[in-house]
């Protein structure tokens, strides 16, 4: 996917005044935030599960090569073919080659963020293959020609009215406003494609080393059709999604639906293991698994490695005051919110996403809700440190911090500067003791006043008193 993260600020500005988006974003806080809180309250050993889940993810990351090879061995033994892709170009090339090899003209997809990283749909279409998104949200976005704005609820930025308009225009049917009716209309459109498609493309929430299976967690049932009906199934997943055992899956599944959608359990958990067996009636004849690196190995063994624990639940963005304000598109790449502010610079380059690690209040609401305890603000701070060290921050900012640090280490000079500052700002505050505009601090005063200081510093008053 194209990277537009350098334009975070200007995109965010547009989003803040987009009434439809603001209404749509309000839904998140209700359903997902409250839902998660309720599910967590129901678990009597929540913190223990969270510790166990984080430990499992760490165990995988510490021996990633071992588990990946185990996965490959077991998947191959059950008739799957495992492909290794270093870059998104590799993924797209492999899928197009597979399509050619198997004579594929039409592919149906279930939701996959990894294929968004790769812009796989564009590559398939360029190769002359029809590709259809079958997750309701992704289907809507394909019609609207928009990228997802949330990793779990891709179309959360749209109101129901916008979807009604879209279906009316694209389907050429009378306008419907009832969600059930809209869903039925999309289903009717999609049914035939499941039957006629030659290839099903899915992602994987987890890849299980001990069985060589891929696993998807869904609510709509489309994923099950994508993975069983077409004769070719291609599952594409990041290499970090490995879990050692099915037992480990059970642990992680205590957390994924609750943190993703506020459900205690998702409607479907589909485990795909190998190809259709001799006496089996359904399942793919060919099963390909593409293990995608896309920058992940570059995080292994670094201070950012904890980010690879991520299970893509979306809780961090649901709870993020910045995401809640600007939505996912402002972030300019596949992954939005706190996890995206770490992943985007890590995967596409620090210099291509300078704003993202800084666009956070460090409130740590994300770190507190993350089911696998990723210290997201700490990781964003690490990226800020890298920006600082690599001189990717504006020289004005670096100079300002240099001067501030120099002064703060010299108490006499600092005290004098503070005394002058306190008086100056108090003067600027005038009679109502509010400063309406401060040069160089327009970011603050454009939409906020600055309460004026008392006018004398604490240290001056204290010295006078004692």
């Amino acid at each position, binding site marked *: 996917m194209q990277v537009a993260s350098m334009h975070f*600020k200007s995109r*965010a*500005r547009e989003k*803040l005044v987009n009434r439809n988006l603001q209404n749509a974003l309000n839904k998140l806080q209700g359903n997902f935030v409250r839902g998660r809180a309720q599910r967590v309250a129901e678990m009597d050993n929540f913190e223990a599960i969270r510790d166990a889940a984080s430990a499992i993810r760490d165990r995988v990351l510490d021996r990633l090569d071992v588990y990946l090879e185990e996965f490959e061995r077991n998947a191959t033994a059950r008739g799957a073919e495992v492909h290794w892709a270093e870059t998104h170009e590799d993924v797209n090339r492999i899928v197009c080659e597979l399509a050619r090899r198997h004579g594929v003209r039409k592919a149906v997809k279930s939701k996959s963020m990894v294929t968004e990283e790769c812009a796989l749909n564009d590559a398939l279409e360029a190769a002359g293959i029809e590709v259809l998104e079958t997750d309701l949200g992704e289907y809507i976005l394909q019609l609207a020609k928009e990228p997802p704005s949330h990793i779990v609820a891709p179309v959360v930025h749209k109101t129901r009215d916008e979807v009604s308009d879209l279906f009316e225009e694209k389907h050429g049917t009378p306008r419907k406003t009832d969600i059930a009716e809209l869903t039925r209309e999309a289903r009717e459109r999609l049914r035939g494609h499941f039957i006629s498609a030659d290839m099903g493309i899915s992602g994987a929430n987890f890849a299980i080393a001990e069985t060589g299976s891929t696993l998807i967690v869904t609510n709509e049932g489309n994923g099950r059709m994508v993975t069983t009906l077409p004769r070719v199934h291609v599952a594409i997943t990041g290499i970090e999604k490995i879990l050692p055992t099915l037992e480990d899956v059970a642990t992680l599944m205590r957390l994924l639906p609750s943190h993703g959608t506020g459900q205690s359990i998702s409607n479907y958990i589909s485990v795909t293991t190998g190809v259709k067996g001799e006496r089996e009636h359904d399942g793919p004849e060919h099963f390909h698994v593409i293990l995608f690196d896309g920058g992940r190995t570059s995080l292994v063994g670094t201070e950012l490695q904890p980010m690879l624990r991520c299970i893509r639940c979306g809780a961090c963005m649901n709870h993020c*005051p*910045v995401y809640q*304000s*600007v939505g996912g598109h402002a972030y300019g790449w596949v992954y939005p919110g706190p996890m995206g502010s770490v992943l985007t610079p890590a995967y596409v380059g620090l210099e291509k996403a300078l704003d993202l690690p*800084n*666009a*956070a*209040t*460090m*409130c*740590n*609401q994300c*770190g507190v809700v993350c089911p696998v305890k990723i210290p997201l603000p700490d990781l964003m*701070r690490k*990226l*800020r*440190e*890298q*920006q*600082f*060290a690599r001189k990717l*921050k504006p020289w004005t*900012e*670096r100079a300002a*911090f*240099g001067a*501030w*640090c120099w002064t*703060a*280490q010299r*108490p006499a000079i*600092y005290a004098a500067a*503070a005394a002058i*500052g*306190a008086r100056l700002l108090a003067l600027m*505050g005038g009679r109502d*003791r*509010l400063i309406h505009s401060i040069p160089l*601090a*327009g*970011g*603050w005063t*454009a*939409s*906020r*006043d*600055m*309460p*004026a*200081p*008392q006018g*004398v*510093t*604490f240290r001056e008053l*204290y*010295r006078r008193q004692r």
Partner: protein
Amino acid sequence: MRVGLFVTCLIDLMRPRIGFAALRLLEAAGCEVVVPATQTCCGQPGYNAGARGAAQALARKVLDEFDAFEYVVVPSGSCAGMIRTHYPELLADQPAELARVQRLASRTYELTDFLLNVVKLEKVPGAYNGTVTYHDSCSGLRELDIKAQPRALLAKVAGLKLKEMNEAETCCGFGGTFALKFGEISAHIAERKCGNISASGADAVVLGDLGCMLNIEGRLRRRGDMSTKVLHVAEVLAGVEERPHINANTRG
């Protein structure tokens, strides 16, 4: 009990009376309070901007200034959190300093936490005639678990009624330099907070961090609310907020 008071740079510059309120409360609790004269800033702005070297330099300075005290008390969850949770990480690769900094971290307390849990303050000098709501500042809440402490102390203030607002634990949008760099997003978040404060019907919002105070008060005034007071918990507990000649919040 000898206590070092870390006033914080923002209180020194903007609201000295909060520093004196903290002093008064600590003395009321029977502490011998020392205010090291050379103190400046804990280094958090640099730390969060990625200027690690600058933050380390200031952490060492604080360490030297406050090493000798039995306890260090800070009327800010954010600066106390910086010392308690981030200093050890910041100086992790300096074995000589690490042990000292860990000792400092373990003896550093946010003001209300210290008053309630260490010195177990029974009576507070303040009195307040009205209803307040409490905003939980992020660092205090999520780094130091400051939640019950200010409420327990406010319950001791004569005449004060506490009414919780919705989303009391949600960030006010301040975020240090974030408020300058991403001013529009910051103000948007602050606006939601102000809406919740207003909807609570309280006549004052009380909190424990100056950054959030300036942000919330700045946004309240800009949206035309000139009456809701924005008070530091120390002011309310010490009963110093009603002195009109130094109070920016009460006009006339």
